[in-house]
């Protein structure tokens, strides 16, 4: 099967899955008591039944559930996710404005966690009882057991307030003037702490898994063969062993992608990172249904794309996955 055909089938499955997500999300939101009319009336200090009905009629909330659902899905097909009553903006625009910030945070954190996790895992697998191995184990345990908001606040206190290496909050410094690179460096400086915070949890998972996978692979027959061929220790470990040990780590990374996104909500809150997480939090409080639905839709989309990429990466690493021949 060639890559193109795989892609086409996967995109088809993704579309089916996304539709299911849409229907489910919409139904769940519909089932939950209260709607935007309640919120508006609350913010006005109360309203009578007539006004409530008026608001509901304005927003089409008085119609039958199926009609609402059908209209919503029809709109989504034209990339129209509805209008946010709370922000007074189209939801699509609202989300697209904030999506890059979240993607930047999530992808960089995932990459850092993966690379650092695998490297430390490999080092500790080579000497499972060495000092380095114990240190990595400790670090992983710490990262996994500490809640992200706590880690985030600790990092803030240490590296923004005590030693003022990094800015406290936000994504860019509006007072900074300059070209693209000046701004890129500014964003990078803002990114460091939230990225480390988010990566700390997942680094723990990846390093433990890489260590276990690597220890198993290092004891395998084909590693012995590689040694018997007179290859350098480096080639044996980083070529023959590592490529085999990567598969489980990549699989886990793909599965964790959704967890990274939900982890980002908390991290964004701690660091006032202007991403989807902050938006999600605010719109849930405001009962801004279209925005919540839009965010759920986009996170489903990101997770599906992430899984597709994981699949392709697995195929690159392990020829057995594709069922070649």
């Amino acid at each position, binding site marked *: 099967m060639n890559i193109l055909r795989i892609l086409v089938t996967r995109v088809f499955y993704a579309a089916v899955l996304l539709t299911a997500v849409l229907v489910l999300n919409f139904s769940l939101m519909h089932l939950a008591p209260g709607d935007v009319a309640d919120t508006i009336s609350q913010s006005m200090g109360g309203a009578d039944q007539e006004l409530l009905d008026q608001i509901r009629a304005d927003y089409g909330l008085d119609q039958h559930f199926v009609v609402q659902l059908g209209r919503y899905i029809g709109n989504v097909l034209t990339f129209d996710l509805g209008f946010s009553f709370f922000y007074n903006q189209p939801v699509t625009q609202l989300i697209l404005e904030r999506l890059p910030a979240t993607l930047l945070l999530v992808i960089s954190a995932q990459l850092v966690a993966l690379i650092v996790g695998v490297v430390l895992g490999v080092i500790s697998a080579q000497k499972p009882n060495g000092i380095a191995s114990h240190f990595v184990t400790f670090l992983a345990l710490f990262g996994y057991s500490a809640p992200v908001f706590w880690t985030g606040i600790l990092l803030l206190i240490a590296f923004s307030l005590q030693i003022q290496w990094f800015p406290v909050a936000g994504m860019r410094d509006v007072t900074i003037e300059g070209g693209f690179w000046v701004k890129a460096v500014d964003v990078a400086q803002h990114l460091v702490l939230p990225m480390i915070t988010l990566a700390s949890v997942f680094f723990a998972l990846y390093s433990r898994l890489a260590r276990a996978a690597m220890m198993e692979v290092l004891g395998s027959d084909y590693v012995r*063969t590689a040694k*018997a061929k007179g290859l350098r220790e480096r080639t044996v470990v980083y070529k023959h062993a590592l490529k085999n040990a990567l598969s489980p780590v990549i699989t886990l990374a793909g599965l964790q992608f959704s967890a990274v996104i939900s982890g980002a909500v908390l991290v964004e809150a701690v660091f006032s990172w202007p991403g989807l997480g902050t938006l999600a939090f605010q719109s849930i409080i405001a009962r801004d249904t279209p925005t919540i639905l839009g965010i759920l839709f986009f996170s489903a989309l990101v997770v599906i794309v992430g899984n597709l990429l994981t699949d392709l990466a697995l195929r690159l690493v392990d*020829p057995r996955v594709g069922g070649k*021949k």
Partner: protein
Amino acid sequence: MALLEVENLRIELTTRDGVAPVIDDLSFSLEAGETLSFVGESGCGKSMTALAIMGLLPDKIGRVARGAIRFDGEDLTKASNARLRDIRGNDISMIFQEPMTSLNPVFTIGEQIAEVLREHQGLSRKAAWDQAIELLDAVRIPNAKGRVGDYPFQMSGGQRQRAMIAIALACRPKILIADEPTTALDVTVQAQIFDLLRDLRRQTGTSIIMITHDMGAVAEMAERMIVMYAGRQAEIGPVEQIIDHARHPYTQGLISCVPHIQKELTEDRPELVEVPGIVPSLRDFGQDRCLFASRCKHLTQQCLDKRPPHREFPGGQIADCWHAEAL
């Protein structure tokens, strides 16, 4: 001078119960172009000897405690890691028992062969790849050109073992160590692999050390054999001479274990015998007595008091038994 000389080799393994000599006072030599066979039950030290020659004893667990392994006059037990790496896969190479797991699943067969050529002979990528095709052809994999880019999972067990042999012979080694190369294969494939090894030996003049517990394979392949028992040499000598007249009771037991196919099924079948008892545990390996004594029908007090010496016989036969002359 012989190509390989092993002298009074002692290998110690650190186990939970302490240090055990898994190879105890082993001496033998291997001439150029000769095939030497190691025979014995599992755990008698056959594979350990092979790993010691390759310098691949398990880290921190196994070590050469005494003796020498001289390859072309150079003592490998004293060689640096870099020097051993130069020799491994180049002058001395090895094929293993499990062809299903001995090849790396995520690299192509071609790459796994070409890699050795690049490492030891400094061949370019292209030249090494072309050579890999030739080697696959030499080990009789049909359509070598089309199969060179295959992954191990696309090959059968016999083909994988052929690929292993191609890797091992890539640099035209002086010694090929085959550790039970056919144990995991079908009987018909076994015969093909033995044929292949015999032909390749004739073409390249490579010496072969063959580790096996298959007496039939020994008779077919080897000129000389070493029977090992509990880490010690029981008997060494020319294959025909030993099969004809073994002087160690353990060798005699092994030989009488081999079933014979008979032409007439109605004919009286000689009783198939076994060697009674089990191999002593690692803990008992170092004792100053005959380790086979508990399973031996020729047991005398002497066997329990002192370890039997190497007794030499005409034709280069050596047996470690107090009663060797009488047997």
